[in-house]
């Protein structure tokens, strides 16, 4: 599972969901893998405002990945030469080149995968196992 998914996942237990500490889930004993993919600039632009940035930084820190900037990048930060606004306006989407910021973000969100390990809820401590890149969120009988 790619790291972006962790930005959407909380604990599955209903009583936990109302508690802020159930998000994000904390990876433990995680085996990471890089699956290379082309930078998807339109997607990055679209998903950027929907990210929970603080939580994303926490996860990166816990996984020992390079630190992300303290504030989320702006859409213009994603395009190389994005600071000179006059040129970017005229260019079409296809001509835009991703900046280093976009490449770094792409690396973290869409190329880094958790293959094995556990995801732990910060509220109740329940562990969700990740096997072969697929996390299991089914709750045992006594927790439903």
């Amino acid at each position, binding site marked *: *599972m*790619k790291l*972006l*998914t962790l930005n*959407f*996942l*909380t*604990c*599955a*237990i*209903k009583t936990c*969901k*109302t*508690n*802020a500490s*159930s*998000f994000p889930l904390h990876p433990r004993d995680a085996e990471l893998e890089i*699956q290379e*993919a*082309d930078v*998807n600039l*339109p*997607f990055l*632009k*679209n*998903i950027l405002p*929907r990210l929970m940035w603080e939580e994303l930084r926490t996860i990166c820190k816990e996984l020992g990945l390079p630190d992300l900037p303290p504030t989320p990048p702006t859409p213009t930060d994603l395009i190389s030469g994005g600071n000179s606004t006059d040129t970017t306006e005229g260019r079409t989407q296809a001509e835009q080149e991703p900046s280093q910021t976009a490449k770094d973000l792409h690396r973290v969100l*869409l190329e880094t*995968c958790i293959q094995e390990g556990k995801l732990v809820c910060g509220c109740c401590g329940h562990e*969700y196992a990740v*096997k*072969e*890149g*697929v*996390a*299991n*969120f*089914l*709750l*045992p*009988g*006594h927790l*439903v």
Partner: protein
Amino acid sequence: MPEYLVRLAQIHETFRKAELHALAELAGVELEIVKYDDDSPYCIVHLPSDAAAKQVASRAMLIQGIYELWGQGSTYDEFRSNVTETSSTKWPTYQTSTFSFRIERYRGVQAPAEQTRAIIESFQFLGFKGKVQIKNPEASFRIFEEYDLDAKEPKYLYLGRWIADSGRDAKNTYDLKKRHYISTTSMDAELALLTANIAQAAPGKIFYDPFMGTGGFPLACAHYGAVVTGSDIDGRSIRGLGGSARRGQTGKKNVEMNFQQYGLEGNYLGGFVSDLTNTPLRLPSSHGVTTETDFAYLDGIVCDPPYGIREGLKVLGSRETLLPTERATHAAQYRTEGYIPPKRPYSFTALLDDILTFAVSTLVPNGRLSMWMPTANDEDVELIIPQHPCLELTSVCVQAFNKWSRRLLTYRRKRASEIPEGALEEMAKRAYETGTRASDLNDFRRKYFQGFREFEDMKKEFIRMKVGAGVKQEEARAEADQIQEAKVSAAEKAELAKKEVEARTKDAEAAAVKAEELNERFNAEART
């Protein structure tokens, strides 16, 4: 606005307009359907430009091609004069271009070559002086003859200049027969792609399928450029431990490999095992965010929920409430290898409402939910389409089978400003079927296994008996129909009578209670 002729595929007719509108909206162009008939593959639309026409058609599944309309008519004389009227201003543009000229006959027989030639030559008045070139001409023209079944003469004619072909070829690329990993309930590739089109999957968007199985829908959405994720209550279908449903295929296959087969692994975020009623996806309530739309993150949800027939409809939980000792056993053992969480059957209507509620919490404004839903053909179908005050039903497409059909329902997530005040509060907890057995919980399943067989079988038996007794078959059939109707109304009457009896019993009970009360009071008074 200029007129364009859309050559549609003559299949899944009720989906065609829905797809056209969805794709036009996605491309941000204004489209107006001028002439459309479910029985015809030719449809006339208004579109702003050739570029817009190309944009709409290029990824459509139920379009074969799009043409600039140069004329139409019901006889060749009328047709030719209409061509002059409509298109004479455009003739000079193509005067020196290389060109091709073809005839397509819909439902007609192949005419002799000299007749086709004569028809084409009768269009000499267009005044083209360029070279005829069949392969890659600069301008390509086509006459469309539309026939009635078994008719000798065409009933209607069109002339069009070719603009673009469609994306219909994708249905061959994604054909289930060629896909490495499928299951018994995988959706047909054409319909999966069509669903992705109607849900407006596109580059930059994120799509989710809560019942992914072997990933047919996410794959279709990824084909159109969306980034996708999915989940299923059965982890074996995602990890691929259960083996492939394809006969004779061995070795490990999984959803990830399906994406690799089409070179789409970059668009696949990965799947996870979960149950929609206990979803791990973040919902607005989890952070106390009040403005739901600020929190949403999905552009689209596409799914084919389990109907409880071939694929069981189950959610987490136990049929009976667990005893404390049983709970203790689960708590003690859930970490052991091979522990399987208990599951219980669930009401289908409740599940559909759960999907809507989930969609409302997670879809961005204008995001789409496209879901398939089965229905028995004999029910009054319009009544049971699930609704939600925050979702607008944009299209209903029907794929009919013999005794049941399934429908593709598409909803648009309304903006906060569109939702009437107090509408959400009115969504009080609805009543669902109760029970612990699958058939008690799922109306469709029950009907499927008995309902729409019962009447049919009885009718056949009745006709057979009557025919045996020397009555003509048609008469027997008519009589059988009458009896069926009578039976239905009898059932209704019985229902009414039952209700009345119930009401009376209630009255009688109330009276008895009152009498008891009075009696007591009387006794008490007597004692004092």
